[in-house]
């Protein structure tokens, strides 16, 4: 995890191909459930790196395993799900020893094996290094507690300095355009959905974590509110040096937000790449079908096709390529062999044998808006 040293930048290699600074890496992560019908896999040996200070969008249908991936980053998969594999966190070496908020002590190691932490360490690790904004913003606050108490209890639970943290919260509230005094003295039910969602983001950032995982943070909000939150996230990332992992089912929504996109299908990543490349010319048939099914003002109703076929069953994941029952370019090979993620272009990987055919056969048009920068 060498960081660019002034002396090494001279080599042509480093100029072209700067080594990636990775903040979290996930290897062979799998989550299984014991169900009456048999064992269910809801995360199937996935690998993925999260780069420092990027906004990474994880996109998939509901039940594709994307929420499991989010929980895995904090080792927060709920019983009776069992998480195995490796989740590693690499602290920011540049920040060095100055970061001593809270009680998590990473020791002298330069990486943290998250699944190896004991329960106290894990408790400190969560929120201090990696924190999360949940799907249900509406219900993430205790209904009989004022907002302020939620912040206080979190700060105290991590043995952080109360005044200093609350000063930081003020900054967060400013960045999120919410009124500190009014919100702090309110009960959750007195706040609108949008304000609640933003307050929840502030609550997640109170201990200055490096990584913020957001699980469908905008699902319950109306379109306007979604846009306003999305547009705030970039500023938030820049101002507070964040890495954001944004989980969503809405591919076009993150087109203007994310630096990279990882598409999940049937509990695996099927395509990972830079947003621009992936949106413009996706290589995997599933991603292309997703983009094809996006309604746009320009597209004819006839042109819009939802993806045919049923969602994969976690107990009975199809053999070979799990997308083959629904794939328009599938052949016999796809039913037997399971394709791995492989580079298609510089910063685009797809798990498919026939990316060229897919690009030929499935075409889609995107409205310009989604690749345009958000204000």
């Amino acid at each position, binding site marked *: 995890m060498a960081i660019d040293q002034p002396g090494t930048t001279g080599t042509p290699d480093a100029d072209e191909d700067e080594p990636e600074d990775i903040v979290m890496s996930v290897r062979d992560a799998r989550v299984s459930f014991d169900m009456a019908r048999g064992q269910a896999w809801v995360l199937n040996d996935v690998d993925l790196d999260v780069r420092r200070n990027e906004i990474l969008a994880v996109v998939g249908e509901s039940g594709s395993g994307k929420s499991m991936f989010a929980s895995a980053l*904090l080792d*927060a998969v*709920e019983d009776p799900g069992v998480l195995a594999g490796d989740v590693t966190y690499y602290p920011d070496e540049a920040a060095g020893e100055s970061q001593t908020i809270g009680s998590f002590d990473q020791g002298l190691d330069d990486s943290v094996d998250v699944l190896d932490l004991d329960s106290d360490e894990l*408790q*400190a690790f*969560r*929120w201090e290094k990696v*924190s*999360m904004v*949940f*799907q*249900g913003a509406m*219900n*993430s*606050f*205790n*209904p*009989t*507690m004022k907002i302020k108490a939620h912040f206080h*209890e*979190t700060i105290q*639970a*991590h043995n952080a300095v109360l005044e200093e943290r609350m000063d930081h919260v003020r900054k967060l509230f400013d960045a999120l355009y919410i009124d500190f005094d009014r919100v702090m003295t309110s*009960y959750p*039910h007195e706040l609108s959905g949008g304000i609640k969602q933003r307050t929840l983001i502030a*609550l997640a950032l109170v201990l200055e974590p490096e990584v913020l995982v957001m699980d469908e943070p905008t699902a319950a909000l109306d379109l306007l509110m979604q846009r306003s939150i999305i547009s705030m996230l970039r500023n938030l990332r820049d101002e507070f040096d964040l890495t954001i992992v944004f989980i969503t089912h809405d591919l076009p929504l993150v087109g203007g937000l994310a630096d990279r996109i990882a598409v999940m299908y049937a509990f695996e990543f099927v395509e990972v790449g830079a947003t621009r490349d992936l949106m413009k010319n996706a290589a995997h048939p599933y991603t292309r079908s997703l983009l094809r099914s996006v309604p746009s003002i320009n597209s004819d109703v006839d042109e819009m096709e939802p993806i045919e076929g049923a969602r994969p069953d976690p107990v009975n994941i199809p053999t070979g390529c799990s997308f083959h029952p629904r794939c328009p370019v599938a052949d016999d090979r796809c039913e037997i062999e399971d394709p791995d993620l492989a580079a298609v272009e510089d910063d685009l990987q797809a798990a498919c044998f026939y990316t060229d055919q897919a690009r030929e056969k499935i075409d889609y048009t995107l409205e310009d808006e989604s690749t345009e920068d958000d204000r």
Partner: protein
Amino acid sequence: MRYYVRRIAQSVFTLLSGLFLTYALYRLIPGSPLKAIMANLIAQQQRRGEVDTEQVARMAEQMTGINPDEPIIVGFFNYVSGIVLRGDFGTSILYQDPVFDILFRAMPWSIFLSVYGIMLGFTASILVGVLMAWHEGSKLDSGLTVLVLSVNAIPYYVGAIVMLSLLAFQWGLFPTGGRAPRAVAPGFNVQFMLGILHHGALPILSTFLLGFGAGSLGMRANTVRIVGSDYLRSARLRGVSSNRILTRYLTRNAILPLYTGLVVGIGALFASNVITEYIFQYQGAGWFLFESVVNQDYPLIMGSFLFFGTVTVLGILLADLTYGLIDPRAETGATRDTF
């Protein structure tokens, strides 16, 4: 504000209606106590010769506080105005004492029994409910469920009688009746206090069992629901301690749906005192109510009814007016407009 005024007015109206019903029934029932008393008096006079109906009516009025010649409405009005204007609740036929004095002296004892029984019972049911939910599906959970169900299935008066016969009569661990030891001088001395506790233990225990069964299963269900809630999961991930989650998240929120039931239940528990106090021969307000019914002590019946009615109505009123304090989401007035 208007809401509070209206709720209080409703309560007064409820209380008056109940009182009127009792009064009217007492007058109207064939073979009512009043008629019985009059028939007695007439029979007495007949034995002596002539019957003076006016004198009979006057004597009956003296004994019962009711003038049989008055229309019911007028009589009721006189009764109520006696209470409101002169604080006159009538005079007990049996004890020849003002009803107010009798009940006023008995009241603290009833309140003593109920408050302790209720507090212990509800506290236990809340704790047991949360405990069951916290260990949902475990042996502890099912064991406690069986226990609670069996406690629920036994009527409290049967429990009381069993306790009385075993603990008091057979083994002599507790007194078989009374409110305080007779040999000790009343006052704030340790012996007297202990004596009171000793005498109150069985009635309190029986009240406790009544309150205990009722709450804990409901509490368990509410707690289980909250254990699965988003805000609990979020609190856990934020690192909030288990202690705080148990108290501030689980218990606090699980009590809310039960709260109204608990407070209203206080009225019912006071009423159960009538039986409990009689079984344990504990001279509280309930014991006097029972005595007065048996002895057709009409003014005392009315007075006792007024006492128990007031307690019940106050319990409901209290539940209504204080709910907004414990649940910030309840908007008093606007949304809780109806009965």
